[in-house]
């Protein structure tokens, strides 16, 4: 009986070990496959190869565009993103808490908010340009508009789904409404709020690039437009690769921050 059990265990353990290995190798394989396909596609065509793209990156260090290397342009985009996110994480979360906690406010704002959410951020660009011209503020505003909904929606969902039993605990301890909100409802909604933070970060990163493509003098989105205007395909591809890598890194950073700030949610990830 026990022999059968150990044999079964060790074979399933062996399986788990190989699976783990496999899961480590698979991502590497997919990247290699992409590079292989990319290289094949670039043979006998104008399409720049991975090597040319890499060389374009080095060249940008030697001859900066508008006085900025790729680092400068990435930082320019990231600055706009974080200005917008700082606003969203303050006022978006506050607004989400308000309409999540207070049913009257929810009824008041939900129709407007849903309509606002349905308008894509890029549709705002003409209005924003008309009102504020082209500078840093209108770009940050576009990013705010494009990424605030994720924060509000998730925060609101977290607040309106607080389990009654946690609030009952508060009642038993004679908590007042303020304490119930700040000591029970908001902490219990933190993982939902964090989902909003994560989604808004990736949304902001996408919107900033689009905003930069429509008139900017710095940023990765600007580099893409510049590459397009000067038929500099390696520059376009290099910028796209940078966008992808930075976006993935942002996702990792926010996930890491979530684990740091909400250690109790770790349970779900393993």
């Amino acid at each position: 009986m026990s022999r059968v059990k150990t044999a079964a265990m060790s074979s399933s353990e062996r399986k788990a070990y190989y699976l783990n290995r496999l899961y480590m190798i698979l991502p590497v394989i997919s990247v290699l496959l992409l590079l292989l396909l990319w290289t094949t596609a670039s043979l006998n065509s104008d399409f720049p190869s991975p090597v040319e793209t890499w060389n374009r990156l080095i060249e940008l260090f030697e001859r900066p565009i508008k006085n900025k290397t790729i680092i400068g342009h990435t930082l320019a985009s990231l600055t706009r993103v974080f200005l917008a996110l700082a606003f969203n994480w303050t006022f978006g979360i506050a607004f989400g808490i308000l309409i999540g906690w207070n049913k009257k406010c929810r009824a008041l704002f939900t129709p407007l908010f849903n309509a606002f959410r349905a308008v894509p951020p890029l549709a705002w660009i003409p209005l924003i340009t008309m009102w504020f011209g082209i500078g840093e503020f209108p770009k940050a505003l576009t990013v705010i508009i494009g990424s605030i909904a994720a924060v509000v929606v998730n925060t609101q969902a977290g607040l309106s789904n607080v389990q009654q039993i946690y609030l009952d605990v508060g009642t038993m301890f004679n908590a007042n409404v303020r304490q119930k909100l700040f000591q029970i409802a908001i902490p219990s909604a933190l993982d939902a709020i964090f989902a909003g933070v994560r989604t808004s970060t990736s949304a902001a990163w996408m919107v900033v690039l689009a905003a930069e493509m429509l008139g900017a003098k710095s940023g990765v989105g600007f580099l893409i437009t510049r590459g397009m205007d000067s038929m500099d395909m390696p520059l376009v591809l290099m910028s796209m690769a940078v966008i992808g890598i930075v976006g993935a890194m942002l996702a990792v950073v926010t996930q890491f921050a979530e684990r740091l700030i909400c250690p109790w949610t770790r349970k779900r990830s393993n």
Partner: protein
Amino acid sequence: MPMDKKKVKLRLENISQSYVVNNEVRDAVSNVSIDVYDNEFLVILGPGHCGKSVLLNIIGGLEKPVEGNKYIDGVKFTGSDKRIGMVFQRLALMPWKTVMGNVEFGPRLAGVDKATRRKIAQKYIDLVGLKGFEKAYPHQLSGGMKQRVGIARAYANSPEILLMDEPFGQLDAQTRIVMEEEIQRIWQQEKRTIIFVTNNIEEAVYLGDRIILLSKCPARVKQIYEINLPRPRNTMDPEFLRIRREVSENTDLAL
């Protein structure tokens, strides 16, 4: 202790509760009057869905009864009261708080300063046998340990009356037996008036100074038993078995 010397801690007077479900009034608790004595371990026993939780929630002030009055030490009160604490049926520990954070939650809401509330919390963490687990999060604990935290949390708010709603209902049989011994030990060390709800007859006879047997829904007081067996009780003792059979024969089956 002779009956006339016992002090009534909590008095329930003609408590009734009903709900409107599909335009139809349904009674959940019907005209329940109970006297609970100071520092007694009172067990409320009844079949599933008979209105036990409703009754306990009314005592705790989580629900308002349609009728009836509540008194502590002879003084009428309504709603929740800080002299009453609750150990919840479903685990209601805050997953975002550590064991210490959960246990000190009551004093913290009451505005007790950090050093004092830590001391209080530590006392009850030690009492329930969780010394060394102060920094653990609920999801890292077993079911029995979580209930220990729930008990410590209720105690730490220094209530005079403790309500426990089937606290061990979700535990496996082995852990349940351990926790029944534990709650008895904790109560004997730190006497409080305990109102313990269960649907388990053996648990009721093992723990109760008295058992209030409720009928099936709507809950009415069907019978009151006084259990004068010495503690800790032996579940194989002939007298224990006799009482258990007597209660059992009188119990309504859950629908």
